[in-house]
């Protein structure tokens, strides 16, 4: 079974874009976000916010990518991520123009 591939932020964003492209025909892309607070925190130790990373995973079929985002990089990452989402999640329904209603109310004053 193929395993998780960990990438740096830019590598992840590149692969995410490709993954979304590939998945247009078939399947689903699943994006997961979780806090990763370091090994000490896993053992039940105190959490230092400086050690916190945002773990992001992208899965499509057998293909799995992940990355860890630190606070200093998160704004740049968020913007790139948002742009990728905007472009890729394009099969959602656009707002319908209410032409029927306009005709009913006739000429606007």
């Amino acid at each position, binding site marked *: 079974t193929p395993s998780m591939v960990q990438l740096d932020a830019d590598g992840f964003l590149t692969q995410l874009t490709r993954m979304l492209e590939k998945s247009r025909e078939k399947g689903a892309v*699943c994006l997961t976000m979780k806090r990763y607070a370091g090994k000490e925190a896993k053992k039940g130790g105190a959490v230092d916010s400086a050690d*916190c990373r945002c773990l992001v995973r992208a899965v499509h079929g057998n293909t799995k990518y992940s990355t860890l985002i630190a606070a200093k990089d*998160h704004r740049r990452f968020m913007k790139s991520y948002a742009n990728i989402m905007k472009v890729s999640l394009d*099969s959602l329904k656009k707002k319908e123009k209410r032409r029927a209603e306009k005709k009913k109310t006739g000429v606007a004053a």
Partner: protein
Amino acid sequence: MVYINDWDAFFHESEKLYLEHPAHTRYTLKYRHTDGKVVLKVTNDRVCLQFVTDQATDLKRIERLNNLFFTYMCGQDPHDSEADAADAGSRGDRPVSQEESGTSKKRRGKR
């Protein structure tokens, strides 16, 4: 498994769940292009909140939720940095930025 219909309620409950269980709460977004649907899930494996949409108008809202979690999960407070994060959207200027550095510069735009 709870499907919440109201976006504001889903957003609020999701943030609350994370703040109560930051170590165990995860946020997933599932997109199936052929279905034209996005399914959001926020869970700590005990409580599970879900929101489904097929509307493009929800994408801006989803972006806000994404940003909320990105910020929380890398150890920052999204409500502190809201003034800075606002430049990513187009909500206008909010002069509430607080700089915690030693040299606190208050930037007042001159007209």
